[in-house]
């Protein structure tokens, strides 16, 4: 695995890699090696940050060692979560038109795709699920909805996401699940932590 280290001042560095699967795998390995630091995967990068102050001197060497490790534990090896989905999202027909199919075609495609949580963001427990090809990318709504219900299954670019709680949102809504995505009493509290594999199944 190769990566480019970008120093961001004394307190942070970014490791640029080739894609979401590499980023999630590298972040997972770095977290066990650097338990005192924040390790945050992105779409094509991993951020390593000190909570307050400076990174330790050996952090670049630790990153280099993690990059040199075989990436055997990356794709396909994470925990599998099945999410039962009611396919009744208000944007289902819109997405179907963009994909050149009908609503049942969208559902069939999504149910046939194994997704992987690449990284989290936007809200606690909101996972960016990779797996759809670039040609199925859809734009965000021109104007975000002021309120998207919790459990909404949504698409934006080539990402799939599930809203853990009610919030404003600009993704296109295709369905909803009753499964709790965020539970403070669980460990980890995010059901779809990076690396988790996800299957959307009929509710």
């Amino acid at each position: 695995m190769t990566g480019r280290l970008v120093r961001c001042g004394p307190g942070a560095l970014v490791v640029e890699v080739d894609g979401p699967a590499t980023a999630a795998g590298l972040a997972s390995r770095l977290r066990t090696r650097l338990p005192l630091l924040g390790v945050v995967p992105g779409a094509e990068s991993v951020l390593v940050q000190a909570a307050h102050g400076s990174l330790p001197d050996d952090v670049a060497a630790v990153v280099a060692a993690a990059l040199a490790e075989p990436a055997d534990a990356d794709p396909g090896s994470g925990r599998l979560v099945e999410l039962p989905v009611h396919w009744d999202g208000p944007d289902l027909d819109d997405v179907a038109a963009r994909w050149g199919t009908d609503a049942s075609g969208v559902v069939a495609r999504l149910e046939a795709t194994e997704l992987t949580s690449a990284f989290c963001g936007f809200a606690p427990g909101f996972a960016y699920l990779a797996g759809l090809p670039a040609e199925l990318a859809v734009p965000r709504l021109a104007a975000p909805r002021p309120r998207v219900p919790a459990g909404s299954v949504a698409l934006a670019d080539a990402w799939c996401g599930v809203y853990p709680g009610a919030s404003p949102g600009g993704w296109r809504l295709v369905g909803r699940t009753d499964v709790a995505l965020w539970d403070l009493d669980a460990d980890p509290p995010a059901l779809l932590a990076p690396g988790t594999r996800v299957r959307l199944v009929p509710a």
Partner: protein
Amino acid sequence: MTDRPAGALEILGIGASALVQDLGRPSLGHLGVPASGALDVAALRAANRLLGQGEGAPIVEALLGGLTVRLHGPGRWFATAGAVVAVSTDGRPRAWGEAVRVPSGGVLRLGRPVRGARTTLAVQGGVRPAAVLGSCSTDTLSGLGPAPLRVGDLVPLGPTTGAPAVGALVPGGPGGAGGPGGRVDPVRLRLHPGPHGSWFPEGRSAVAGGPRTVSATSDRVGLRLEGPPIPRRPGEVPSLGLPPGAVQVPPDGRPVVLLADRPTTGGYPILGVVDPRDLDACAQLLPGDAVELRPVRG
């Protein structure tokens, strides 16, 4: 055994806002959990040191002073740091930046800052609403942690530990590390290179066109700066983790220095990253204050 805490703070008055903060949740960013925590970490540490207790004990972060509290339970020591305010207990003037004893039932009041924005009020034993994911911090972005304090709240205090450093001052006094910094005008923030240099045709020197001013829309998420727009390529970068101090430049070209309650990831290009040692000063800036982002090497 008793369910009643040995002590509590009754909130009698609030300025612009009063939030419980400690060192936050810095290690859960990969789950989408913002770091949160005290905006002026040096003030948090300094005030707790004055009380002889762990530097990360939860405090009240009072924006624009105005905080008034009554102590329930036995007498305790309190300490202030951060923005400089008049301090009084039961109407009697007390010293800012020192440990002060408040008797049972006593009322401590903070005036409006004469310098800075956020005053840290530390209490012996710590201010301890129910912790969430290991922290008592209120995260204003995600809503994690206790709700912002409101008049009438009764907030539990922890058991007292350690002995206060009676007579000691926060380091350097009002201009020192526990205060709003050795203020110069404009406040200079060192700007290190970031991951998106190629997005800015003028590089980090784009910020060199004189001081910028703090926007009234600044908050715990970010210090928003007004001034000439910074030229950048259109579009977004692949979402990436956002370190503290990252200077995001949205399409309108107006930079935002990301602070404690920033989102964990984002897709606006990053002009550079403010030195962590300069972030405490950001907590003490007010709308209209002049800020200079000064590029430094690596």
